[in-house]
């Protein structure tokens, strides 16, 4: 069974349909790309999966429900929300923090670090999900609390070293260089110990060298942490080199999906990007 399965979800802002009955599947251990022109709804997919936006209700107009309506008048009111199933359970109703604690972590298109906290505390604050001590325990500094804090510190420092940020651990996150902020955001997401990592344009604003390193890092992180990755990216070199499968979105609809080679030669994808030839 797929790790993440989005089944016919719609997201609407007022009358604007941002996502129109989107369906996608991500299998355990895959790196899946999400591409599409600007405004196609890629980030909206992330926001929907992480619970920031809830799928809207929509009415099925299939013949099946049409006939049901004739039998049961109440069936008229039957509306569907679609469903988002993660790790075998529906997460459609959950709050963003609950979804994070179920094991979906993300980064943001416009980096959202805790700028006035140290690099270390950025990562430590994301270890919160797995912290075990109660508030009275923390205030009284019980033995269990101190042990827990030592464990959090150790795993946070370890993560920073993996991402080459160990030497900056006491710097303010906001004072880091751009590329380092991007890496810190991924490190922070991993501190949640997710099963699925959502990366929103991780290579944006990076030069060719940094981009290559990032692509390697994503693959390495997938292997080392046993992750599954869903990545939005405009840089086709990154997408083509790391993704097992790709979904292409345009105007809130999936217009194509398949392997990098299939996507590269798909006429609909080419049309969406370059216009009719």
């Amino acid at each position, binding site marked *: 069974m797929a790790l993440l399965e989005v089944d016919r979800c719609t997201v609407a802002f007022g009358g604007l349909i941002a996502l129109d009955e989107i369906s996608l599947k991500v299998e355990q251990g895959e790196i899946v790309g999400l591409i599409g022109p600007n405004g196609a709804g890629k980030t909206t997919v992330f926001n929907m999966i992480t619970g920031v936006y809830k799928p809207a209700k929509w009415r099925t107009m299939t013949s099946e429900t049409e006939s049901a309506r004739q039998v049961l008048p109440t069936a008229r009111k039957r509306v569907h929300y679609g469903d988002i199933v993660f790790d075998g359970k529906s997460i459609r109703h959950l709050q963003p*923090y609950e979804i994070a604690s179920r094991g979906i972590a993300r980064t943001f298109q416009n980096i*959202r670090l805790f*700028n006035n*906290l140290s690099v270390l505390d950025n990562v430590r*604050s994301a270890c*919160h999900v797995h912290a075990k001590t109660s*508030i009275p325990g923390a205030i*009284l500094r019980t033995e269990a609390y101190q042990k827990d*804090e030592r464990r959090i510190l150790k795993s946070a420092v370890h993560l920073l070293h993996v991402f080459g940020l160990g030497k900056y651990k006491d710097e303010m996150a906001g004072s880091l260089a751009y590329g380092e902020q991007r890496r810190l955001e991924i490190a922070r*997401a991993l501190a949640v110990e997710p099963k699925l990592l959502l990366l929103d344009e991780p290579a944006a604003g990076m030069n060719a060298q940094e981009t290559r390193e990032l692509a390697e890092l994503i693959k390495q992180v997938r292997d080392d942490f046993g992750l599954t990755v869903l990545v939005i990216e405009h840089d086709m070199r990154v997408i083509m080199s790391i993704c097992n499968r790709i979904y292409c979105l345009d105007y809130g609809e999936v217009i194509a999906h398949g392997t990098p080679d299939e996507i590269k030669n798909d006429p609909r994808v080419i049309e969406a990007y370059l216009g009719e030839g």
Partner: protein
Amino acid sequence: MRLRAGSAVRLVVWTAVLAAAAMAAGALIKGPLGGYYFRLLILSGIAVVAAVSLNIINGFSGQFSLGHAGFMLVGAYASAGITLFAHHSINRAFDAVGLPAGARTPVEFAIAMIAAAAAAGAVGLVVGLPSLRLRGDYLAIATLGFGEGIRSIFVTVDALGGASGLHDIPEYTTLTWVVLAAIGVVMMSRNLALSTHGRALFAIREDETAAQAVGINTFKYKVLAFVIAAAWAGIAGALLAHSDKNIDPRSYSFMKSIEIVVMVVLGGMGSVTGAVIAAIGLTWLPELLRAAAVYRMVFYSALLIVMMIVRRQGLFGRAELSIRWMAETLRRMTSRALGERR
């Protein structure tokens, strides 16, 4: 919950030592200092409790509350309710358990303060649950409304004392109690700030969306900060009522809330040390400026304005005064001085 034997013992010993020291200091300095300055000392201690607790909301979690005086008022009434109206029944209970005479007043006042904390905390929960769904300016307005509303209730409902407030409250507040409360709120803030729960609050202050994305239940933590701070404000109110010996609800107005906010901002939002220093400083400053007579408040405001221009992040920014911090600063200063000489 198991305390490490060492830390439990340390906690008890330190509390006892500090209580004894405060008691001795109170007895020693009360005479030479005179009633006026001794009262200022008490008032600055109460200001510390109020400012450090507000810092948990405004400084740690980055929310903006303008209703702290309202929670103090709830605590003042709750505690005075115990010491005024439940005094006899409590004493009967003391008779029953055979509590020695010397321990009766402290125990009674402790009960009153716990009642104050519980009442203010409960009101904090009731106010926080709906209003913490708001952000920024909207939250500030909502808490302002609460502060003024609760005061109006006490002023208008005659059963609660009406406009004349409550009188003949026993003077239970001693320097010892004030010092203990101040140490309590400082220790609690500090330990909270160092823990995963404190980091959750800081994360909310920095970026609420990102905080949720790393699994922090932002609403729960905002309410929690609000309730903890309200409970301590209740204790500050109890101490004030039992030092004033009366409650005049009109003096717990919006201006008092602003005063506490100014302490937090001036000390540096999020800095416990800053809140302590600013609370003490701003209690003494208007009194020390009495020499300026009618221009006193002009000087006071001018000083605040200059302060905010020169050091916008507050006295301490987000730093805390600790031995390590002092050592680091000293090292940096000496190395800079040495560097300049070279």
